[in-house]
């Protein structure tokens, strides 16, 4: 075998294992400056990534760090250490391996910096932290390879942009560094390849045999799913039966709340006491680790989980994946299916469980798309400037820098290849002085130029900057703890905590707990003996169905007859036809109905979530003008649901083209989407600190909301860099208004408003959607006045 030292070859032979062709290819291309390997899970992808490293380190001649492995999950880095140590020990190779993340003890971190291991396993955030230290040149001296695992997942977010910027810095510290990306199946491999490579160098793309086609289908269940609802309680017996029939079953959910509710119900029905665990991102680390260990040891038969298990942890003997709720996006479905059956040549098996009847239609569409290999995905924009601002701060923490040199270094990172000098200067100016139109802070600049090099005005600021490195936004989560000195149970969103009053019960980690109160930013709970919790509505991530999928769904609805759908879903669609009608492409159906004390309209555009979101913004603006007091909206891929105080009798005037544009900018600027986006941008760019030294001492009065900063900037400095980034980013989630205007023009005269007495079958699932956008207008003051009067009357004070 070419390039393979005898110890390694012998190890393969001793096990009677063949080296996979793509693993061989990786060895053959080991000298390439950049390589992207696309292989299904279970294809020995990670070993393929590491084989060249093991081969190069086999003679024990290398001193210091040789290979840096970066993965999106801390758990994956720790897992990889176990998986690598075993063969390395068995092969008798002289290789030191260690992992590093936020959870690594400080003493071990210090030791790693002084005397780096040959292979360091880490995350993008820990890497960003490492390059911020003045001794980074020492740590990375002699580095030969960087292996990025699950690069397709990293590339989808700003974590990827941060990582690729870090690579540009590593390239300067260790010239000639080779880069390897490992990816699951993706629709646009060239795009990811261009991110991995040092711009403009080429990147080799290797594709492994995708293996046998997966066995996916809907899980046959006798009971009908409900009209709406996300709990899928009806499927509990059928799912338990599958768990019983398989060795290990992963049960995926789209949100943490759904996972909690499902797990709770599963546990109540689990008469045999099958070992089943729960794993999601809101659970405390100790609890997650316990489940991960039990799973690796093969002690669990089922794991109820969310996206936190999406990425390639080596889960041993998983032989079935169940997806509860519509997968929303075909790429994710395919990647989740990859969890099942890590043996390379056996087909992976997956079953879909729609949680309600609309999801039956969605699941059917996703199944067809998956069988046709129709992967969806949105193209990626250029590297975001807030991440660049953070990178400049990181550079300043490490050492004084020359702006010209840093600009060229940054441009070698794939996502920033098109960065203009003016954009870079804007970011530098923001980091150094705040970049405000009003000259301020001449004495207190963050960065100052001395002898032509930029540096921190006060070097002690580096500690604060390091505490805020990273692009993951979890600032509004509160820890949940048992009252007294109890253990941490997990985290819930601040907004969910705000909706609780003492005595309310909710689910976390499969337990029902009782809310007792908030103490120093920790939610205190006690155990509750009840069996019925107040529904946990903490939301987790919102997934959007791709536009392609929503088009498929509309085509299915229009078919008029649905032989592939189960009878209950056919009945449900027929009922929609009877109560209202099914949407079609030639006209726009708008349903208007009261529900739960508010008025609603549901607009079925089937235009994809971004377009429906834009439509929500436009229509609420027009409703505000018409005095209809809109309160908020939520957009899915097929419809926009708007609620307010007054009923809409005829929606057609809301689509008045001339009036859509007037005053739109002001309406947008005040919208929650913009404020939410700003909060993330300002945090990443370093304007808002998530963590500060001695935070506990300062009272709550001292911290004020990012909305205030947003409003102030919008009023006094509307062209500020952070507002420009915010607008660009918010607009990426919206579509071009021209397209909405086109749609309005096309259907004008064909807008049918149906005034109905209650929620329709097709509208019902929308009430469960997360990502609701509140609208600030006259309705809020009206609500406030009504509620004030009601409260005073109730208290006998009015």
């Amino acid at each position, binding site marked *: 075998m070419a390039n393979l030292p005898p110890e390694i070859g012998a190890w393969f032979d001793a096990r009677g294992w063949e080296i996979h062709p793509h693993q061989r290819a990786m060895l053959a291309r080991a000298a390439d400056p950049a390589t992207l390997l696309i292989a299904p899970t279970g294809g020995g992808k990670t070993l393929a990534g590491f084989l060249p490293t093991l081969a190069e380190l086999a003679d024990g001649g290398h001193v210091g760090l040789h290979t840096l492995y970066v993965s999106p999950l801390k758990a994956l880095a720790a897992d990889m250490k176990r998986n690598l140590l075993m063969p390395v020990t068995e092969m008798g190779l002289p290789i030191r391996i260690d992992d590093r993340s936020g959870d690594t003890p400080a003493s071990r971190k210090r030791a790693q910096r002084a005397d780096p291991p040959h292979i360091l396993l880490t995350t993008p955030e820990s890497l960003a932290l490492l390059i911020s230290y003045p001794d980074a040149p020492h740590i990375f001296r002699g580095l030969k390879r960087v292996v990025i695992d699950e690069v397709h997942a990293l590339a989808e977010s700003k974590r990827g942009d941060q990582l690729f910027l870090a690579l540009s810095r590593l390239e300067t510290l260790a010239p000639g560094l080779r880069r390897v990306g490992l990816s699951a199946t993706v629709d646009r491999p060239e795009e990811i390849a261009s991110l991995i490579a040092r711009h403009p160098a080429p990147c080799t793309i290797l594709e492994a045999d995708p293996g046998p086609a997966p066995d996916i289908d809907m899980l046959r269940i006798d009971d009908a799913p409900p009209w709406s609802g996300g709990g899928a309680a009806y499927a509990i017996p059928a799912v338990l039966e599958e768990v019983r029939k398989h060795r290990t079953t992963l049960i995926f959910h789209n949100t943490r709340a759904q996972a909690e509710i499902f797990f709770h119900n599963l546990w109540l029905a689990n008469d045999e006491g099958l070992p089943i665990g729960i794993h999601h991102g809101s659970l405390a680390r100790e609890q997650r680790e316990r489940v991960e260990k039990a799973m690796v040891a093969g002690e669990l038969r089922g794991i109820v989980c969310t996206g936190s298990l999406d990425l390639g942890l080596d889960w041993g003997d998983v032989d079935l994946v169940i997806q509860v709720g519509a997968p929303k996006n075909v790429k994710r479905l395919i990647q989740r299916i990859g969890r099942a059956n890590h043996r390379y040549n056996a087909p992976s098996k997956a079953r879909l469980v729609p949680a309600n009847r609309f999801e039956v239609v969605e699941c059917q569409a996703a199944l067809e798309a998956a069988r046709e290999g129709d992967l969806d995905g949105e193209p990626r924009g250029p590297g975001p400037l807030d991440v660049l601002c953070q990178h400049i701060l990181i550079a300043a923490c490490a050492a004084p820098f020359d702006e010209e040199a840093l600009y060229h270094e940054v441009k070698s990172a794939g996502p920033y290849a098109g960065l203009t000098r003016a954009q870079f200067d804007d970011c530098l100016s923001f980091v150094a002085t705040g970049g*405000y139109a*009003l000259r301020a802070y001449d004495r207190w*600049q963050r960065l100052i130029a001395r002898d032509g090099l930029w540096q921190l005005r006060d070097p002690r600021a580096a500690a604060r900057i390091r505490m805020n490195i990273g692009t993951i936004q979890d600032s509004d989560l509160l820890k949940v703890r048992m009252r007294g000195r109890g253990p941490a149970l997990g985290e819930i969103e601040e907004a969910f905590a705000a909706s609780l009053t003492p005595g309310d019960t909710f689910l976390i980690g499969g337990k029902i707990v009782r809310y007792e109160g908030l103490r120093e930013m920790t939610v205190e709970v006690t155990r509750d003996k009840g069996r019925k919790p107040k529904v946990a509505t903490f939301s987790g991530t919102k997934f959007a169905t791709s536009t392609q999928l929503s088009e498929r769904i509309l085509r299915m609805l229009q078919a008029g007859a649905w032989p592939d759908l189960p009878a209950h879903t056919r009945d449900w669609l027929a009922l929609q036809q009877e109560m209202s009608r099914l949407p079609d492409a030639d006209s726009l159906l708008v349903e208007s109905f009261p529900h739960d004390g508010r008025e609603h309209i549901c607009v079925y555009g089937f235009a994809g979530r971004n377009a429906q979101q834009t439509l929500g913004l436009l229509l609420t603006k027009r409703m505000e003008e018409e005095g209809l007091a809109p309160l908020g909206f939520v957009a899915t891929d097929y419809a926009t649901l708007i609620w307010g*105080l007054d009923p809409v009798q005829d929606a057609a005037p809301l689509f008045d083209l001339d009036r859509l544009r007037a005053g739109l900018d002001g309406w947008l600027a005040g919208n929650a989407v913009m404020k939410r986006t700003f909060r993330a941008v300002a945090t990443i760019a370093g304007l808002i600190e998530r963590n*500060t030294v001695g935070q506990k001492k300062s009272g709550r*009065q001292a911290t004020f909301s990012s909305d205030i*900063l947003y409003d*102030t*900037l919008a009023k006094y400095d509307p062209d500020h860099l952070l507002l420009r980034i915010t607008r660009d980013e918010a607009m990426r989630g919206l579509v071009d208004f021209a397209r909405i205007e086109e749609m309005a023009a096309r259907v004008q005269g064909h807008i049918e408003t149906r005034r109905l007495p209650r929620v329709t079958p097709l509208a019902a699932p929308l009430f469960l959607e997360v990502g609701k956008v509140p609208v600030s207008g006259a309705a809020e*003051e009206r609500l406030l006045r009504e509620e004030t009067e009601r409260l005073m009357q109730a208290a006998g004070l009015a």
Partner: protein
Amino acid sequence: MKAHDFNISGMRLQARGAGALYWPERRLLCVSDLHLGKSERRARLQGATLPPYETQDTLSRLDAELAAVEPEIVVCLGDSFDDAEAALSLSDQEKIWITRMQAGRRWVWIEGNHDPGPVDLGGTHLSELPIGPLTFRHIAQKGASGEVSGHYHPKARLTAKGRSITRPCFLIDDERVILPAFGTYTGGMHCDEPPLSTLMGAEATAVLTGPFPAPIPMPR
């Protein structure tokens, strides 16, 4: 912007929607916790360089209140400056603006925990100010009566039809009123948190700021 009328120690006072308190009988306007110069102080303490517009914004809202009620006395109830150095480093333009607002009326700076010493900006500097049956001080004292104070930046939340609305608020009971923070860069403390919930009497009301200030039973 409207106002809510209420009585403390027999005096009729108005909680104004903008967050200022007006005492018509004495033509006295009171604002609390302006925190002028906050962004300058943050930058000095190695923090981020916040948008340096909050002093300008706070002063223009104060100016609008002065124009609306034309008071003879203005009482700034403490924490008017984020610290002594922040007061010194206001721009000349901002200092002139303050001087202009002081012209022709009595102006009192009550000392706060952020600004305990006198400032060189005109007006009188006092630890507290008794007028008739009322006492103006920065931090409320247990057992006091006829007390007007600030410090806590109270805010209140109410939920209606699924919408949660949080606003800075006045807290009012028979003995005292606590003012919301008037400064632009200020956060708040929910009135159901212990220092406030234990301080205020059982019948306390909260008046949420905004275009239509009206009382609700203080959320606890």
